[in-house]
């Protein structure tokens, strides 16, 4: 049984990469991907916890269930995100996030 710590480390690393990616990628799609990373990291975390920590038997599978839901929702979010990015591309012919600053101040 792999102990809990590595899972947490991997998950934390994934979140860090995701946040870093979101902050630096210039293309909207890049940001989308990094957000997916964060969600998966959280799912990993959930699954790891559900396996290792003592929970009441009613909630023994809560973690996995939450992870499943998280993945489903991530998919939905990705779909919505992509559609918005396509709209942006169709209107302003770019997905470069730094160029999309029609509204400021």
């Amino acid at each position, binding site marked *: 049984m792999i102990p809990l710590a590595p899972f947490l480390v991997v998950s934390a690393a994934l979140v860090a990469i995701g946040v870093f990616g979101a902050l630096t990628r210039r293309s909207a799609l890049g940001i989308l991907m990094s957000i997916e990373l964060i969600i998966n990291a959280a799912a990993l975390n959930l699954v790891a916890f559900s396996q290792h920590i003592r929970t009441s038997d009613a909630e023994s599978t809560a973690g996995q269930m939450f992870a499943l839901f998280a993945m489903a929702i991530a998919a939905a979010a990705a779909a919505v995100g992509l559609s918005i990015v396509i709209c942006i591309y169709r209107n302003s012919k770019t997905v470069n*996030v730094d160029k*999309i600053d029609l509204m400021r101040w």
Partner: protein
Amino acid sequence: MDFLPALIPVLPLLAFAVIITNGRRLGWSACLVAVGASLTSAVLAALVYSRVLLSHETLAWSFEWVRWGETALRMGVRIDGLGALMLFMVTVVGTLIEIYAIGYMAGDKTFSRFFAFVSLFMAGMLGLVVADNLLLLFVSWEIMGLCSYFLIGFYFHRPSAAAAGIKAFITTRIGDVGLLIGMILLWWTAGTLRFDELLLAVPALAGLGDAHVDLMLTAAALLIFVGTIGKSAQFPLHVWLPDAMEGPTPVSALIHAATMVAAGVFLVARSFILFAQFPAALTVVAWVGGFTALFAALIALTQNDIKRVLAYSTLSQLGYMVMALGLGAYAAGMFHLITHAFFKALLFMGAGAVIHGFHHVQDMRRMGGLWGKMPWTAWTFLVATLAISGIPPLSGFWSKDEILLGAFHESPVLWVAGTFTAFLTAFYMFRLFFMTFTGRQRDGEIHAHESPAVMILPLVVLAVGAALLGIPGSPWMGLWVQHSLDVPAYALAHHHHSNLVMGLSIAVAVAGIALAWLMYAPRPTIQPARVARAMGRLYTLSLNKFHIDEIYAALIINPTRALARGSFRFDLGLIDGAVNGMGWLQRALASLKGLFDKWVVDGIVNLLATIVQALSAVFGLIQTGRVHNYLLLASLGALVIACLTWWNMG
């Protein structure tokens, strides 16, 4: 019938109301309403003071004006000996002057307004005389101040008259404010403002020997005296009286000679109980009076405007009265007040007749030889001049002699000053007489004419008064006037008669007249011009009134205006702010990319608005429109929150 005295001031008040409301309809007949009112009140007054003087009783009647809980303010009238005498003087002189004014003011298109204000003035003066407490006295005092403002500024289209009016009102106002504080101080220490209650309360309080109470009462006395200095134009608040000559002459006669200016002296007499308890207050009064007398006489020597000379002479005579009171010669002071009212009113009316006949020229240097053209005026003027110079048996001599007698016993320095002033008085009065009535008329083309009968009649009556009024107060009639004043016990006893003082005062008067004859007679032996050069700086000093006006302008008036402008700028600058005041802040903040919009920026009040604008512009910048910045700032924010809470928790 004891509320009769209360009617005396009310009648002229009604006349004022009637005239002011339908001035146009009344037109000329306004003077009849005014004179009628003052005549009836004169008759009423006669009933009252004859009863008071003959049977030595005091009429009093009062009603409750305002009540708070248990403290209450009662208002009413009270006529004692002093009040009776003043009533006699005010009503007689007032009515005569009103009759005289009919002639003098004839043809003036604002005729009715003049008589309206004169009636209001009479109401004020009579109210002052009959008042039984300081508050009602103060109310009438201020109403008189207002009338003097209107009447001085009567020819309001003349800027100088308007300015003189304001000068008079504000200078007296300074005095009144002193009186106001004195009254309040008195109320808090003695607990009452009614004269009869003061007669009992003040000696009791003084008897306590408590230093603080004594200090308070002395302060109250001095503050009340400040009121007198303002109203009776004593030094240093005397500057307004000479300028008050801008008003028509009947006004000068009535207000600035006989009655109003005497009100200050009357006030000190009314509250004499307060002064008598504290010698410190009395000496101040005496010295201020003495100095004013001498100071005004010196200035009168060199004046060339006939009314200015009389104005300074009034100042000097008022100084005499105040000095008399200050020396404790209470009866002498009041007696001089009565006689002075008569002959000074006559002098002014005589001067008025001269000016009226001389087509409104007031400069004596252009007059001369009017004796032939205006015989009645000249004769009555001569009687009055003799009276004021103190030539027996005229009234001026007896009253002035009483004062000098008192001065002789009390303080020799003041006696010398008084006598010297008497000499100066005789000199400048006869200088005036000779320059106007004797010799040739220097300014040829003005052909003077005698005044109409309606002006001559009052002159004659007053001349008789000036001549004979001295008798009742003279030893021949056993000083009847002084005794009838029911001199309060605390006043100094009457001094025994001294021939030295009487002789010296007569000699001084005659010397003055002789010197005047030498210098200003038809063929002057001593050329006034050479004397003027000889006196040199003294002469010029006296001519422009010791530059007091200029000093006041520099010390008080201009700094006040500057202070006013300064506080307005302060009000705008610091609290409210003019734009330039905020210039440096704007430049400092403007560097943050065009921060200010069209709002007017001012002062601390709008400094806040400016700061809010600046902050708004600064923080607005974080909204760069780029998602990256948002995400970055969001995560930084989360980090900061986590650290802060951890640090706070830890």
